[in-house]
């Protein structure tokens, strides 16, 4: 019984945040009950759930080409998206009087992922006994979970930055702008770097051939 209790107490805050987002995030930040290891655990569970769903949901709901499914790529994509979003949100909110530290943002986003963790794996298993007509049920649950996840992120950001709703919406929009800028800069940097490498390499070739 103590084992169950320990698991429950480990995962109590994510569950509480799912049903009482505002007070939950308040406790996470201001009562210092948020733990990075719980956040990382939650994120890893999401990665596993998404991979599990892509791999094992039935053809009725998932007609992806099995050759294009790669759990490592999915893990990298999710991690990259998380880091990008958190960094750009941090960049924007630092300029707009947000109270949240970087770690608060990461924790808020990761703690908000609980609906995905709780629905994806059960729905994947359930999908294997569903027919085409009942597939709508599957998609409904999945989309409710994703919408709830989005709302939780939003309420998390509102709480950790101590924002009003209007300001939070503005910063979220600005976050996406910052995200695009970051992606653009990374692409630019990579291209320039490639040019530089090419230049040095051709210089080397010339020298080797001529000397």
């Amino acid at each position, binding site marked *: 019984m103590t084992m169950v209790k320990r698991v429950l107490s480990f995962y109590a805050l994510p569950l509480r945040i799912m049903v009482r987002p505002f007070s939950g995030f308040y406790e996470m930040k201001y009562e210092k009950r948020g733990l990075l290891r719980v956040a990382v655990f939650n994120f890893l569970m999401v990665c596993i759930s998404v991979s599990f769903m892509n791999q094992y949901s039935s*053809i*009725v709901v998932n*007609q992806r*080409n099995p*050759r294009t499914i790669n759990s490592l790529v999915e893990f990298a994509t999710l991690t990259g998206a998380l880091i990008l979003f958190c960094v750009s949100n941090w960049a924007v909110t630092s300029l707009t009087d947000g109270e949240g530290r970087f770690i608060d943002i990461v924790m808020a986003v990761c703690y908000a992922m609980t609906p995905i963790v709780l629905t994806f794996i059960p729905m994947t298993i359930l999908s294997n*006994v*569903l*027919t*085409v*007509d009942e597939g709508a049920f599957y998609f409904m649950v999945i989309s409710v979970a994703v919408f709830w996840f989005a709302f939780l992120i939003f309420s998390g950001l509102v709480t950790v930055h101590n924002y009003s709703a209007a300001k939070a919406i503005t910063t979220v929009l600005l976050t996406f702008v910052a995200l695009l800028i970051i992606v653009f800069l990374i692409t630019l940097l990579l291209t320039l770097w490639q040019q530089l490498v090419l230049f040095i390499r051709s210089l080397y070739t010339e020298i080797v051939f001529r000397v």
Partner: protein
Amino acid sequence: MYRRIVATMLTLAIIVAGFVPVMADAPFEGFTYNFWGDYVPTPAAYVPVLSVGGRDFGIGDFTTPQDISSDLYGNIYVADTGNNRIVKFDRNIELVWVIDSFLRDGQPDSFNSPNGIFVSEDMLIHIADTESRRIITLDQEGNFVREIGPPEFGDLDEAVDFRPLKVLVDRGGRVFVSALHVVEGMMTFNSDGDFMGYYGTIRVFFNPIDMLWRFLSTQEQRARQAMFIPTEFAGMDIDPYGFIFATNRAPWGDNMVQRLNPRGENVLLNLNTNVQVTGSQRYRITGPLSGRSMFVDVAARSHGMFSVLDSIRGRVYTYDSEGNLLYAFAGIGNILGMSRNPVAIEAVGDSLLILDDRRGHIIYFEPTEYGNLINSAIALAYDGDGAGAVEKWTRLLEIDEHFTLAHVGIGRAHLAAGENRLAMEYLQRGMDVRYYSVALRRFRTEILSEVLPYVLTVGLAGAVAIVGFRIFKRFKKGGAVS
């Protein structure tokens, strides 16, 4: 060592070549596209066996021949466009006759660039005599039967430049003509040669990106772009059930091939996959052999199958009656089995003939064991002989285990036989979601009806036991009090 292997192989090749008159290997790779549109190599369904030109009959080379047709007996008729003549040869590739002139009302007459030829079921030969602006009908002896000139529209007749390219006649004698720059559809004439109206207009669709592009371009650019108007039909054929297959060369839009019912409506729909009959699904955008398929001709086959000819890559794509791709083969090239500029395709029994206008040759293709299995399985399934089809599909899977339709065919047969678990397995491999769902629902019900009685019995017994135990306890308690 290496030398010895080569020498052995050469000897073997010579021995094999000595015994097998037919070319055993194809110069191209047979392929198909899977559910996700990936290119999947398959064994060749057809192999080239022969290439015939005018010189082989001693009548000089064909010059840009544009069309071939066949009759019920397997005779081949060629519209030798550049030489203004039509040529007939029989199934043993022996010349029957050459017609370059005929007597019309006692006057000698000849062809001027005949682009289309069609032999109807009553063995009459219909020729689209393009530059003379008429359709000529001759009988087998070359006697003049009928001429259809430009249609008369009353007030509008001066606007019509009637240059027929392809002609087709159905069992009822209705004449269908595809004429150059006539974009309203096929012109139809009754057997007396009176104009009846248009048939099977190609509807024009274009996507929002094209529209945006057009919106952004200047007046001069717009003038240079291809216009969004329908094109005339490029190739036509009629199947034994009276459906007319027609292709068009439009570089945009859907319905690259249509199966038209007698009312002129396209009834070629793939209800299963929503996939359009598009030929190439993966292709380069620029460079040589690029762009989407351009279907210049279509050959109606037996049992609802049809083969279309893609002139860009010289390939032949064969589909079943539902528009599922069965096999694709051939290509652009110079060796036997490849063509330089294919313009027409004709089916004679199970063999396929491609007309190459650049070289003036007709290439004969014969089905391999693989092609024969597919053809016969589709035929059996089309005729409702499920068991026979399954036998063919099973043998086909031994050759090519990735053949999707075979999995679907076997799965559906299992479903009909009530073997739901097996049906699910095959239908899942065939990515047939609809039928997989049906199999799954039946299998689910089967399992439930087996398991549920036990579950309910045990549950009920448990509930009775618990209630009984409580009552017993209370009774005992009550007894103790009293």
